[in-house]
């Protein structure tokens, strides 16, 4: 990056270190912190959406919808997360390619599953074989995001379902007495009051989501853990900046990063809890209104 870094073999000490932390590889490392934050920013609302859908389904009057909602929440909570993180991206990818194969590959005979290979014609691959690598990586990231949303959505759904039930019944009855329809009671009375009961569980879930972001690494996405391991490993002179095993320092940096996220999250949720506690019949609201 700097002009004095052109020949790493001739520099040492602090200058070497400056050049070392500004190589292209390290830039990719710094960018991966952004990838993790983007994943968090997208996965949390997506999980909340899935959870909301699940909780709503559990309250439905139709048996089929109710069973679907309860089944989703129970099964995904009960089966080990790692099974979903490994299964969902692969299964979805194959499902999309299978559908495209049916539509686009009329001339290919035989099943797509041949022995232990999954074969679709070139036009049906998603993304296409001719697409640049960044398209593939973006697609992989999106599948990972979907897997996160599905898994954490079940936990969010359980929290929201419990919170919806915790809203005092008299509130809903009073709303009904005023002539509000079921839908109006739900959106205007139940939902705003539900948050104070949902927030402790949801903030807990957020912290678990933050801790789970290194699972991206399992899915082949180049996240912070991938780069920390890659950069930290001892390097021979095949590289321009040979060094010993520095993984401890890189993982310490990750520790600081995750602790910083935790600290900011704690402060944010405390503020949110204060705001939602106004006028509620909870112990927390007494501390707020005084």
């Amino acid at each position, binding site marked *: 990056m700097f002009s004095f870094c052109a020949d790493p073999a001739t520099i040492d000490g602090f200058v070497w270190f400056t050049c070392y932390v500004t190589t292209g*590889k390290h*830039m990719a490392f710094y960018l991966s912190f952004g990838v993790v934050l983007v994943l968090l920013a997208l996965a949390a609302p997506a999980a909340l959406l899935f959870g909301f859908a699940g909780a709503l389904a559990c309250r439905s009057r139709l048996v089929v919808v109710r069973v679907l909602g309860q089944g989703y929440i129970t099964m995904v909570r009960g089966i080990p997360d790692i099974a979903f993180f490994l299964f969902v991206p692969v299964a979805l990818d194959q499902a999309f390619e299978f559908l495209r194969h049916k539509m686009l590959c009329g001339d290919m005979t035989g099943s797509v599953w041949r022995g232990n290979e999954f074969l679709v014609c070139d036009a049906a691959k998603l993304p296409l074989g*001719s697409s640049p690598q960044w398209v593939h990586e973006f697609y992989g990231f999106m599948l990972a995001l979907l897997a996160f949303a599905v898994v954490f959505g079940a936990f969010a759904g359980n929290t929201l379902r419990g919170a919806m039930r915790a809203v005092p019944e008299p509130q809903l009855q009073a709303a009904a007495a005023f002539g509000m329809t079921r839908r109006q009671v739900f959106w205007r009375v139940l939902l705003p009051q539900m948050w104070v009961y949902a927030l402790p569980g949801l903030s807990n879930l957020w912290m678990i989501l933050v801790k789970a972001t290194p699972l991206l690494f399992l899915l082949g996405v180049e996240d912070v853990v991938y780069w920390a391991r890659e950069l930290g*490993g001892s390097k021979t002179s095949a590289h321009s900046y040979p060094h010993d*095993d520095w993984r401890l320092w890189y993982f310490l940096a990750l520790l600081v990063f995750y602790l910083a996220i935790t600290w900011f999250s704690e402060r944010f949720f405390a503020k949110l809890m204060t705001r939602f506690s106004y006028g509620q019949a909870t112990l927390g609201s007494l501390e707020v209104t005084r």
Partner: protein
Amino acid sequence: MKKIILGAVVAMFAATGAIADTIRLGTEGAYEPWNFVNDAGKLDGFEIELGNELCKRASLTCEWVKNDWDSIIPNLKSGNYDAIIAGMSITEERQKVIDFTSEYYPADPSAFVGLAGASAAATNGVVAAQTATIQAGYVASSSATLVEFATPDETIAAVRNGEADAVLADRGYLQPIVEESNGQLVFVGDSVQIGGGVGMGMRKSDGALRAKLDAAIASVKSDGTLNKMIAKWFGADAPKF
């Protein structure tokens, strides 16, 4: 809102585009000097240079994909890429699931490396190796205790911190590490010849691509380009064709 969702679904299914003659090559990116990620963040190494040359000779466009060693064969079979070029030795066990091109690197002897002062008895103690390699299979069937790691440099770290008495890996990988360890790491015991040469792994159904790559490999062998590349990356006394 409905139109946006519908549009996205249609776009996903309609996207075909021009399918050029592009193949995707999968590699590990953690096995110097075969394939590694250089300081600019790009894939580099003997196999990257060889792969680009083979693609030029076979008139193909090549995209490089990095994939962890553990899932490199399963991801080949599900179509994430079209060929594996990652220092993979040709063995009968692997031949059962995938096909190989002809070899582009002669069978490399595998060597044991231990800390300075270790005797040949270290090769019968706790030996570290990378998972799913021929070296791991060799140690498992010998009298030594096998400790497996996901990446090659974790196996070296294990020897350095005393977790393992020795590491068994390709001599070509261990040579530069031993030379640059300032005497801390030394070769112990004898080298062993395990497995055949190194070839590119392909799906069994991809016979046409294999034929193209075989022709390209024969071409780089016959005009001496391959030997020059081997000498460049592995030193003058590396095995050649």
